[in-house]
């Protein structure tokens, strides 16, 4: 049994100093979550030894994105360094979007989350102000994906247009594993986020083998999902501990360290 597997099997905090969860949410969503306080999220992170989670608001897919950004900002201020933020926008009027993006970045948000359940393609002009700032400051952009080739084509276009932004594809391997691998290998600034509820056997191994250990980052979707359940797919993967550490920590640190003011 590898060291990290043993830590997970026995429920001990992981001995990895800077574990970063690149895909989180805060707020209320349509289905029941027993405890939606940021405090409960941080308590879970403490039990596992997770340093930080980068969250977007549950409003990232609706018209109240700005309100969600402010709720998220309050949590970021309550737990500095533990809860980081992806800003989200509702792509209506460009001046307001630009102002919202600038407000959030000045307030300390880490990146951008765009969810296409808003009903727009990722290339929609209303999102461009957020992409431009991400390019300027070398920020991560987390895209909700589910293996759809037309969506990959949109993101491929953006990856070329904004080469200094890091494009994170959520739910990598939920469908079309080959498509995710192709996206990560063809685009230097595309990374694969492991978030997926049922965690198919062998999926993390497939992503690492296909895209490379430097291109996979751990996301939990917590507390939309259970962080403790989602970390098991990395700890249980049949890959060396050093690769698990890259997925849990090193790769995300490298993405965040690219930021320039």
């Amino acid at each position, binding site marked *: 049994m590898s060291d990290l597997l043993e830590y997970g099997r026995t429920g001990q905090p992981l001995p990895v100093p800077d574990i970063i969860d690149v895909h989180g949410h805060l707020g209320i969503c349509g289905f029941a979550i027993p405890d939606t306080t940021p405090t409960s999220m941080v308590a879970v992170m403490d039990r596992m030894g997770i340093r930080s989670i980068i969250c977007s608001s549950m409003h990232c897919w609706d018209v109240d994105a700005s309100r969600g950004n402010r709720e998220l900002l309050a949590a970021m201020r309550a737990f500095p360094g533990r809860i980081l933020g992806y800003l989200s926008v509702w792509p209506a009027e460009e001046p307001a979007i630009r102002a919202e993006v600038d407000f959030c970045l000045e307030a300390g948000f880490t990146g951008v989350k765009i969810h296409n359940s808003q009903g727009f393609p990722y290339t929609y002009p209303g999102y461009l102000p957020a992409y431009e700032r991400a390019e300027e400051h070398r920020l991560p952009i987390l895209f909700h994906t589910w293996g759809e080739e037309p969506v990959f084509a949109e993101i491929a276009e953006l990856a070329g247009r904004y080469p200094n932004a890091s494009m994170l594809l959520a739910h990598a391997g939920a469908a079309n594993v080959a498509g995710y691998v192709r996206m990560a290998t063809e685009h230097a600034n595309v990374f694969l986020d492991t978030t997926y509820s049922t965690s198919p056997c062998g999926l993390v191994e497939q992503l690492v083998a296909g895209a490379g250990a430097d291109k996979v980052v751990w996301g939990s979707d917590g507390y939309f999902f*259970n962080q403790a359940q989602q970390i098991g797919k990395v700890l249980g993967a049949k890959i060396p501990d050093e690769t698990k550490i890259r997925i849990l920590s090193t790769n995300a640190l490298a993405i965040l360290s690219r930021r320039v003011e």
Partner: protein
Amino acid sequence: MSIELFDVQCGFGGARAGDPAVVSAEALLREMGRLHISTALTRRVPDDRLEDVPASNAVLYAARDEHPSLIPCPVVVPSRGGSLPPEHAQVAAHVAQGCGAVSIRPAKDYWDLAPWVCHRLFDALQERNMPVFCLASDVSLVQVGDLAGRFPSLPIIVAGVHYRQQRILLPLLETFPGVHLSLGNCYTIHRGIEELVAKIGPERLLFGTGFPESEPMTAITQLMYADLTDDDRRLIGAANLRRLISEVAP
């Protein structure tokens, strides 16, 4: 801490239509060994087009004869209309062969949970305190509630519950004390286990992985990092399922 784990939701020897992969009993045992899972209640998984129920069940018993840590969970079917022995005989035979529970999959085996279709089967199972395993994809939570209301002392294990079903699952468990929950493999709810323990206690929660569909370590970390007492964790990890199996009437 390290605790014993008894997997209520796993299997081997099946296949999904269009996918040639078959996970053997030996592969399941290797995975159990890797993760220190002591015992497993096993089904044929995946079970696409496994329509010869007696033959499929025999595979489970043959694996158990070779590997005692694999406890069979055979499929049972109402017998009216032919092909299978009467319900009481089916259940008696499975008890005699040492099954740990039985599973039902009404649509796949062409029957229905209407009382006039299956009451003899569930009468026979209830008489024996035989746990009945139900995948939520085969038996909806509403159907589980209906069954639990009709057979209040029948132990029912519901598995594969989706993380968005908490508003149905919690009242189901609160209303029907015979219903138990496997925590695999899509019950990925933030503080979900903790809430269930607070509301209904730990005795009806069961460790389950969903292997070979899902990476089993996800179920382990979900349990091991949950905010529970060690006693609660031991109950969920193995003791609750051992108790259920021990209560089957010979």
